[in-house]
C-alpha cells in the first residue's frame, strides 16, 4: 500500500518536473493574478493593504483550480486510470498519492513564495507570517477537495469550467478562514481560531476526500 503510494507520488512529481514549466508557471500564475488586482483597482497602498488577504486567497484558489483538470484527465484519456482501478490495492490510496503530488507541485511552491508578494502589498511582518502559515495549512484542503471535483467532471467535455463551478463553492470555507486569519493578524487579533479551523478542514479533506474521489472515478470508468 505504501509502495503504491510512493510510486504514485513519485510518478506524478516526475511528470510535473518533466513538464518543467509546470511548477514555475503555477507560481507565476499566482503572482500575475495577484498583480492584476492593483491594475484593476488602482494603486493606493491603503486600499491594497485591505484587499491583500482576500486577493491572495482568491489567487491561491484559482491557481490550484487551474491545475485540477489535468489531475486525472491525462490518466483517463490514455488508459492509465483503468490500470490503476485494476490494481489490487484500493483506488483511494492511489488517489491520495495523486492528491499529495498535486499539493507538492501547486500549493507548496505557492506558499513558499507568498512572503514576497506580501511585501509587494506592503503587509506588516506578522500578517505576512500568518499568511504563510495559513496557506501552508489550508492549501492541502484545496487539493483534496479539488480532486473530488476533478473526478466528477472526468470525461465530461467542457469539464474545465464545470469543474470550477463544482469546486469553487466548496472552497469558500477555506477562503473565508484563510483570509480571516490574515485579516485578524493585521487587525491585531490572534489568528489561532482561524488556523485551527483551516487545519481541521485540511485533515478532514485529506482523510475523506480520497474515498469520494475514488468512487467518482469508478463511475467515470464505467
Amino acid at each position, binding site marked *: 500500500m505504501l509502495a503504491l503510494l510512493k510510486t504514485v507520488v513519485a510518478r506524478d512529481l516526475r511528470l510535473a518536473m518533466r*513538464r*518543467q*514549466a509546470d511548477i*514555475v*508557471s503555477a507560481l*507565476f500564475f499566482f*503572482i*500575475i493574478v495577484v*498583480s492584476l488586482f*492593483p*491594475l484593476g483597482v*488602482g*494603486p*493606493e*497602498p491603503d486600499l*491594497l493593504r485591505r484587499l491583500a488577504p482576500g486577493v491572495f486567497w482568491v489567487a491561491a484558489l484559482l491557481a490550484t483550480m487551474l491545475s485540477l483538470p489535468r489531475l486525472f484527465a491525462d490518466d483517463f484519456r490514455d488508459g492509465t486510470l483503468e490500470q490503476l482501478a485494476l490494481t489490487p490495492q484500493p483506488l483511494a490510496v492511489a488517489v491520495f498519492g495523486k492528491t499529495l503530488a498535486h499539493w507538492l507541485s501547486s500549493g507548496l511552491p505557492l506558499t513558499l513564495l507568498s512572503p514576497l508578494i506580501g*511585501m*509587494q*502589498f*506592503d503587509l506588516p511582518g506578522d500578517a505576512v507570517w500568518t499568511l504563510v502559515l495559513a496557506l501552508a495549512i489550508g492549501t492541502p484542503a484545496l487539493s483534496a477537495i479539488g480532486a473530488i471535483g476533478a473526478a466528477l467532471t472526468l470525461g465530461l467535455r467542457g469539464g474545465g469550467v464545470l469543474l470550477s463551478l463544482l469546486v469553487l463553492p466548496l472552497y469558500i470555507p477555506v477562503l473565508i478562514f484563510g483570509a480571516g486569519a490574515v485579516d485578524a493578524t493585521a487587525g491585531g487579533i490572534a489568528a489561532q481560531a482561524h488556523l485551527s479551523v483551516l487545519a481541521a478542514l485540511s485533515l478532514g479533506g485529506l482523510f475523506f476526500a480520497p474515498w469520494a474521489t475514488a468512487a467518482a472515478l469508478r463511475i467515470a470508468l464505467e
Partner: protein
Amino acid sequence: MNNGLLNWFKFASPQSFYPLAGKMIPWFWALAAVLGAAGLYIGFFVAPTDAQQGEGYRIIFLHVPAAWMSMFIYLVMAFWAAIGLIYKTRLSGMMASALAPTGALLTFLALWTGAFWGKPMWGAWWVWDARLTSELILFFLYIGFIALQAAIDDPRRADKAGAILALVGAVNIPIIYFSVKWWNTLHQGASVSLSKSPSMATTMLWGMLLCALAFWMYSIAVALMRVRSIILERERGTEWVRQRLTSAAR
C-alpha cells in the same frame, strides 16, 4: 549588395560564428571590466552626495543601467526573432534564446535594486507606480518566453514559437507601457513620486553612462557565451563539431 548579403549569411552560419564569438568574448569582458571599474569609481568615490537623498541615491549607478538594458535586450531579442522568421537563419533563433535569460536577470536586478531604493526613499519596497509595474510585466514577458521555449523540446520549433511570442510582445510593450502610465495618472496621483533632481550633476551622469556601457558589454559577453553553448548543443551531431572537438583545440 548581393555580395554583402552573402557575406552576412556566411557569418550567420553557426559554424563560422562559433569561433568568431569565441574570439570576441574576451574583448567584451575586458571592456565591461574597464568601463565598470571606471563607472563605479566615479559613482562611489567622485560623485557628490545628493541634496535630497543623501548617499542612498548611489543605487542609481546599478539601477538605471539594469533598467535600460532590460528593455533594450528585449528589443534586440525581438529583432533577432524577426530576422529568424523572415530569413530562416538558424543563428538568429539561437541569439534570441541566448539573450532571454540575461534580459530576465537584468530585469530582476532592476526590480531588486529599485526595491532596495524604494524602501528608504518611499518607505515601501514596492508601490504600484507605472514604471515599476511595466518593468514587472516585462519580467513576466521574459519568463513567458523562457518557459515557452523550455516547454518545447524540438529546437527549431522552439525558435519559431519563441519568435512569434517575442514579436507579439514587442508590439505590446509600448501599448502596455502607455496604458500603465495612463492608468496611474488617471487615479489620484501616486502617494509618492520619484524625486529627480532637474539637472543631475555631470559627474553623476558620467558615472551612470559608464556603468550603462559596462552593463551593455557584459550583456554581449554573456550572451555570446550562452550562444556558443546553444550552438554546440544543437549542432552536436554535425561534422564540424566532431572535427573541432576531436582535434586538440576547444
